[in-house]
């Protein structure tokens, strides 16, 4: 089953008669498994939602990734299943404890307790010219975080960003928030595609961009 928008290592497979996205790796959050494969729940993952919606993220599998806002590792564990070296940045201690459990059996997943607004505090660990930054921080200033982390990305790399409107402003119309976010992003990126993720995540925008 080849699907042009899916990276190698991500497949649509059947779990109990239902076709779902899946990657190969040890389970992390109680998701259904089938042999080595485990289902990827798009309701719990913005990136999973983007794949489910057919967004062309430019991810092909095997790449080096920086993941910002890793939380307990739900999404980043799937990323580490299909990508190469994966740096997972999260600043809250409690979810990081669970992130450590997701990282333990994944030798190319590197957990870091760091604040994504301060890339100086991890640029001595995270390598230059990574192929992709995947970001899901859901706090105010999401576009600024992406701009500050552009330094890690290769010239032809991809930013795959999820923006939560309510994190920026609860009262504003989401479209207005998204326009502001995109214009801030354009300081450092050329936006290639955007897609509303509402089918899985209300008032979220998916953005694919590349460095300017």
């Amino acid at each position, binding site marked *: 089953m080849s699907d042009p928008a899916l990276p190698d290592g991500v497949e649509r497979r059947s779990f109990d008669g239902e076709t779902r996205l899946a990657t190969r790796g040890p389970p992390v959050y109680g998701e259904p498994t089938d042999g080595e494969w485990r289902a990827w729940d798009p309701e719990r993952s913005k990136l999973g939602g983007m794949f489910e919606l057919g967004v062309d993220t430019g991810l092909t599998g095997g790449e080096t990734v920086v993941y910002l806002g890793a939380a307990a590792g739900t999404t980043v564990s799937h990323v580490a299943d299909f990508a190469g*070296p994966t740096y997972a940045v999260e600043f*809250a*201690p*409690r*979810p*990081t*404890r669970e*992130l*450590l459990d997701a*990282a*333990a059996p994944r*030798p*190319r*997943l*590197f*957990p*870091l*307790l760091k604040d994504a607004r301060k890339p*100086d*505090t991890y*640029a*001595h*660990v*995270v*390598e*230059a*010219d990574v192929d992709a930054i995947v970001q899901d921080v*859901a*706090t105010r200033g999401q576009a600024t975080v992406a701009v500050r982390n552009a*330094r*890690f990305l290769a010239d032809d790399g991809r930013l795959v960003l999820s923006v*939560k409107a*309510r*994190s920026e402003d*609860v*009262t504003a119309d989401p479209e207005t928030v998204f326009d502001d976010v995109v214009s801030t992003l354009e300081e450092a990126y050329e936006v290639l595609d955007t897609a509303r993720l509402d089918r899985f995540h209300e008032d979220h925008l998916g953005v694919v961009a590349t460095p300017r």
Partner: protein
Amino acid sequence: MSDTDAGSGPDDDRDAGWFRGLRSEADDADTAHERIAAGEAATPRDWPRLAVDSGFAESASAYYDRLHEATTQATREAVRERERADDKQLIHTVRAMDDCERVANELAERAAEWAGSLFEETDAGLAGARAVAEREPSGDLERRAVSVSARAVDLADERDALSATIERIAPAVAPNLAAMAGPELAARLIALAGGLEPLAKKPSGTVQVLGAEDALFAHLSGRAPSPKHGIIYTHEFVRGTRPADRGSAARALAGKLTLAARVDHYAGEYREQLHADLRDRMEAIGARAEADE
């Protein structure tokens, strides 16, 4: 051991990779963890290649193996340390900070007053003490006055260091409360309540007047009107609101702070929604004030 990695100068630790100067055997674990936790660089570099070139790892793959080991361990330790910073530690820190501030000011006043009798020109308070502490004393009396000034300055510096510690640990102890109230006010509320759990269990009306116990007592014994706010008065949402609306601003803020303390105590994770809700409420109060004008 190779020290010539990364092409940076031999003494230039800033902007070097976390593995700089470490041996290829796994016996520098503590240093490696410390570097990952506290190191910095302005720009990332091709660390895997530099690690191989400098002899730290035999291959990129061996480098990644060590990176996995080191980041996992360092992050586990960092999580543990942040979690050890509990509410009791925060209370000690904020109380020590207040003590240092009070004593620093008292001692500075004394020192400045004393110095005024010894030297031609001195300023009052801490600024005065700082100037006096820099002087070259002659004779025993001057030496003592200069020394007392220096103690006052040390205490003021210690106060600032304690304040920086609060900024760092309050978000780990109570992420929502610290984000909403600011680290210092969060620490004070926790201290006044005697801990995060007692704070989480207080009704929001009590949180609203925490720190105004004297005024509350006067009210209960019929001598004064009921206080509208305690220490939360220092929050911009209350202070920045016109006097007529301060009561409702304080009530709204206390309600959200109480929720924040509960989420911090029972769940311990940051919830953006709480903060968005508070911004909403405050905008509504602000809009009401504008409409009245």
